């Protein structure tokens, strides 16, 4: 890509212009991150009166802790479930809207709204819908013979948080899929129709491969969202329960650190999360340009 180069006069102006962003980043991102790294090496009593340097002991304990390992697999299930559900629903809706001509804008606007809802509100919304005593869905499921109770069933709880988290993300995915679909020339689909491909075949052999860059990008974004951006959803619905069934890594950082007051372990967990974010970002940048292009 070509960009125009502009030279600013004077030595101090560029720095002054950058300063606000740099200061905010330093205070709210770099400094806390540094603190996390530092605290991960310490053990502190719950009242903050004494600290001992323990080296990598916090990490060693973490990876031997069945609760933490459980949280990892819970996170994996949650992230994969949320990503699959939100992306497949979004693709379905994008394909439906893409067929429309006149009402396209109206539907697009309506479908984007959930994205503006805060995660906690989305959580509460689904919490009400799924509430075992006052919710509408358990009532209907009961008529089908299924007793829904996410306060006692780990599976139900996981489904609930996946629904809530995915619902909010559908809007975002939908916009990208719709844009992706619209950038596929109509004549390609027509050529495939003349070439004897059924609508099903056309989708899998032409449309889906051409959407691959979009799909891959969204996959990374959705996994990142599910892993790091869903604290509100969990906190408003299950608080990680029942019996650790929905205690995903980010929620555990909070629960161990601010409820359990085990700051050292909590800091070590955030360092692990940081490593995961870095890894995902590298994957995204390394692969999105190369692998999935055609």
């Amino acid at each position, binding site marked *: 890509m070509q960009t125009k180069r502009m030279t600013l006069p004077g030595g101090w102006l560029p720095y002054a212009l950058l300063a606000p962003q740099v200061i905010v980043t330093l205070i709210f991102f770099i400094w806390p991150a540094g603190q996390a790294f530092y605290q991960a090496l310490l053990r502190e009593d719950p009242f903050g009166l004494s600290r001992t340097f323990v080296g990598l002991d916090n990490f060693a304990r973490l990876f031997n802790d069945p609760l933490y390992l459980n949280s990892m697999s819970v996170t994996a299930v949650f992230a994969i479930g949320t990503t699959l559900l939100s992306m497949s629903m979004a693709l379905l809706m994008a394909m439906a809207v893409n067929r429309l001509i006149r009402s396209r804008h109206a539907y697009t606007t309506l479908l984007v709204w959930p994205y503006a809802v805060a995660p906690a509100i989305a959580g509460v919304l689904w919490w009400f819908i799924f509430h075992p005593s006052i919710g509408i869905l358990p009532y209907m499921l009961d008529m089908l013979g299924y007793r829904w109770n996410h306060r006692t069933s780990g599976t139900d709880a996981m489904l609930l948080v996946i629904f809530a988290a995915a619902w909010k993300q559908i809007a975002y995915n939908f916009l990208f899929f719709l844009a992706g679909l619209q950038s596929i*020339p109509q*004549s390609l689909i*027509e050529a495939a*129709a003349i*070439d004897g491909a059924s609508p099903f075949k056309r989708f899998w052999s032409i449309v889906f491969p051409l959407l691959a860059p979009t799909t891959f990008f969204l996959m990374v974004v959705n996994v990142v969202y599910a892993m790091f951006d869903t604290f509100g959803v969990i906190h408003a619905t299950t608080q990680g329960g029942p019996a650790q069934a929905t205690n995903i890594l980010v929620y555990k950082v909070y629960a161990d650190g601010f409820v359990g007051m085990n700051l050292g372990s909590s800091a070590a967990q955030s360092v692990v999360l940081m490593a995961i974010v870095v890894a995902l970002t590298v994957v995204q940048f390394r692969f999105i340009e190369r692998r999935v292009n055609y």
Partner: protein
Amino acid sequence: MASIKLEGLRKTYPGNVQAVKGIDLDVADGEFVVLVGPSGCGKSTLLRMVAGLESVGEGTLHIGDRVVNDLEPAQRDIAMVFQNYALYPHMTVFDNLAYGLKNRGHQRDEIERRVQEAAKMLEIEELLPRKPRQLSGGQRQRVAMGRALVREPAAFLFDEPLSNLDAKLRVQMRVEIKQLQRRLQTTSLYVTHDQLEAMTLGDRLVVLNGGRIEQVGTPMEIYLRPASLFVATFIGSPAMNLFPVDYLRERGSGLLDDLPEGTDIVGIRPDDLHIQAPDKRHLIVESTLELFEAAGAESHLYVRLEGNDQPTVIRTAGQPPVTEGETLRFHVTREALHPFNRESGRRMGV
């Protein structure tokens, strides 16, 4: 191989926009018919109706001995070459050619054989492992042709396939398309807005305007005897000059007496205004030369005749010894006059 028959074909879009207003046309087996007209004349809609990409509004469409009105594009046994080529960008050239055959359940070795054959015919064998984005415009055009002919369909449909190419390639591909069609003898319908492409490619031309057929005929029939004012000015470049009949009558000295009844406007091709006086009886117009264009083998003279508000173009071979601003005399024979009626737009007489 098949003939194509259009009977009373109509297409009305929502909002009562009539794109095609009743078209009857017979395309014989193996014939190359070109649909030509300005943009918005309905030629592309017509082609897409034949392809099955637009539903047939009214009328009957036959391909071979079947009525195909309600058949899917794939069932019509046609192949189409698109303006933007519509190559599948994520597939190699080989897979692009093979896609239609695979969908129809051909055997692997049969596919291999037919793709190689088509690639050889179009001289794109060494391009087979490449992706479309690695090809030049001309190569993409060839691949698009290859994808059409590898299926050995009953008919080829071309939707302005050359309009994305530069001038030189366009001429080259035009010749190749014609040779290919001659060789394969496959019925072809070709849509273009370029009258030169139409003239040179078609066995027959269908001139369309405003959703209706203006004239059907061989290129020379249409050039020599345009059936309407529209055809007269659309086919041929530079366009035919038009004169009010009274204007010429003043200088025609009896030459225009036998013009058919109802003639009030006369067309003269730029080639039919001669600087040299011919042997035959002729009429003479006089005017000042406004602009002289030398185009190598031929020259264009732009003049404005006194009393005629339209500028007039004259085409002559070579470079006549004239200078801008000089007054010239032009000679026109009776045979060169095309009589029209302004109101109906039709040619007068038989």
